């Protein structure tokens, strides 16, 4: 083996193992420091709804609820929008506006979380409370989720903020995927007499199905971990209330809000227990994404 090859293998291998080692070290450290909370509260911590530093009793219930609702809610809103943007930018945009719109979507991703959080609290929250929430309540009020809307900072505001934040990722990946669809497939469909929409639905979307699924999971991962923007707009709620227009809290937001100000002997371990739960979530979504991509590769290989 030549020296160059050896060095390449060595350096690349070292980098790969270093990143693996880093992840392992982080996980080990967090789980280790969460141990006192696990010993004190056991598994019931995961569903108990309480956070009382004065009496040193903690539970992740309301934060787990908030994380699931806001992340999946944001994905539900962002996915169709982002796929639409991807389609527009790859198939439908006139040459003139293609470049500016692409640039704007990328810029959305570049806005710092703390700025979006501030804007969300000062501008978005009052707007949603005064105009959007009542409208939703009057139309969908029979569903408890869309109950009375009294306050600005709420789960719904957090969902909107997260939607804005994960939109660019899913949109740009979708756009790349649609651009990568083999043109002979698309032209073939058009040649057989399909309309634009039929071609998109039958060829582009189905060809990129698994890639889009992976993009959505990437967006979900981003939504799960977003802390700073969420903690500004979500209202610091402490209960599980089945109404999107009430304040709530998520795992990441709680950790970010309280990590520097813990009191009570068990608050820091309890926060790290929250972090462990969040890590488990991230691990599951990451593995899911891997499985989907691998399945897709096999599918495409068979074609």
């Amino acid at each position, binding site marked *: 083996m030549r020296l160059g090859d050896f060095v390449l293998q060595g350096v690349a291998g070292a980098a790969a193992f270093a990143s693996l080692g880093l992840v392992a070290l982080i996980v080990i450290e967090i789980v280790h420091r969460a141990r006192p909370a696990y010993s004190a509260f056991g598994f019931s911590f995961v569903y108990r709804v*309480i*956070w*009382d*530093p*004065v*009496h040193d009793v903690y539970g992740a219930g309301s934060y787990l609820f908030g994380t699931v609702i806001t992340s999946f809610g944001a994905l539900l809103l962002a996915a169709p929008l982002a796929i639409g943007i991807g389609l527009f930018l790859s198939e439908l945009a006139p040459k003139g506006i293609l470049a500016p719109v692409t640039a704007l979507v990328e810029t959305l991703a570049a806005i710092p979380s703390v700025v979006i959080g*501030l804007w969300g*609290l*000062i501008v978005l*929250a*009052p707007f949603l409370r005064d105009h959007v929430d009542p409208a939703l309540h009057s139309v969908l009020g029979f569903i408890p989720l869309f109950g009375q809307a*009294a*306050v*600005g*900072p709420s789960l719904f505001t957090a969902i909107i903020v997260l939607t804005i934040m994960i939109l660019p990722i899913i949109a740009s990946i979708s756009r790349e995927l649609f651009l990568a669809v083999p043109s002979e497939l698309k032209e073939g469909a058009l040649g057989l007499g399909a309309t634009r929409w039929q071609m998109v639905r039958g060829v582009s979307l189905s060809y990129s199905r698994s890639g889009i699924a992976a993009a959505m999971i990437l967006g979900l991962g981003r939504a799960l971990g977003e802390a700073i923007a969420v*903690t*500004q707009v979500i*209202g*610091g*709620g*402490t*209960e599980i*209330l089945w*109404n999107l227009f*009430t*304040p709530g*809290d998520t795992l990441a937001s709680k950790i970010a*809000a*309280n990590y*520097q*100000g*813990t*009191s*009570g*002997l068990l*608050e820091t371990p309890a926060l790290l227990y929250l972090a462990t739960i969040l890590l488990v979530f991230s691990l599951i979504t990451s593995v899911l994404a891997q499985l989907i991509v691998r399945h897709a590769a096999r599918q495409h290989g068979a074609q």
Partner: protein
Amino acid sequence: MPRTRLKIRIVLVAALAGALVALTATVAGASRLTGTHLSGAGSTFVQPLVNKWISPVKSQLGTALTYNGVGSTGGVTAIDSRGVDMGMSDAPLSQFPGKCTNCVQMPWALAGTAVVYNLPSLPYLHISGPVLAQMFNCTITKWNAPAIKALNPGRTLPNTTIFPVHRTDGSGTTYNFTDFLSKVSSAWRNGPGTGTSVSWPSCGGNALGGSHSSGVSGVVKGQVGSIGYVDVYYAKSNSLQYMDVKNAAGKYIQPTLASFKAAGSSDTTPNSNGVISIVYPSASFPTAYPICTYTYVDVQKTGNGSQAPVIRKFLNWAIHTGQSYGPALLFQPLDPGVVTWDTNNAIPHIGS
């Protein structure tokens, strides 16, 4: 041709690197040359005052003071692990069990917490401690409740929902406010209690949380009917409406320097741990504002090495000359009794 370009590039990079090294060396050398340095971390409550001190401390004592406003708990954690020379906290060390067990604790600044609210055209509403506790405990839910009306005769209160706003992050201001609520309400004392972070009743979703004073201010300003708490300087410099709070003598008091001074006069001797509580002073102090607090500085008793005299000199300066910078920032200068206690019982214990 490519070789010359490469050479030019190498020369440019080397020159840049050299310039950077020279610059760093000069800066580092400069700070080494011009005297001592001190590091502090903690309370954001006292941060405006400490920031005001940086310049005069440099010119009068020759010490470069750096301060990191990471919050009271962050400050206590930092001094516990000796990451800084001094930790600043609004809550006494008893709130942080196991931390800084061999530390000197002394009060060194006095200020208050304002009760801020959002009801347009209704400035300076009257409120009492027990009613406040009931509002945050969700037993009073509307602004035109009889209990609030009784405190404000002659004023028309709207039928608006009350939205109690709290700090989501651990905060010394929360400690001061909950300390007050615990003193005036047994339901609060036996319920959420006193702490830098407590379990706030959610009032069916009406209770809101804001991150830091800016978050609380943002939530209060954006929500009519909300009521929250921030330190007085923040409330006044951000034009928030604040309430006149009823003290033990039955008088409704605005948060001003005079009312802080009156509260401070209610107890001028710290206990053996250096703690003084001046929350809800007795009726013998009719002009006292009931939600005042001292803020503390914590220093390790041993292991300070050559920093010990620097720390002692600075703290001496802080409790004497430093206090004159307070009033502009709504910090009431310390009572002479407190200054004496600090000088005799706290500062001398800061050893090498």
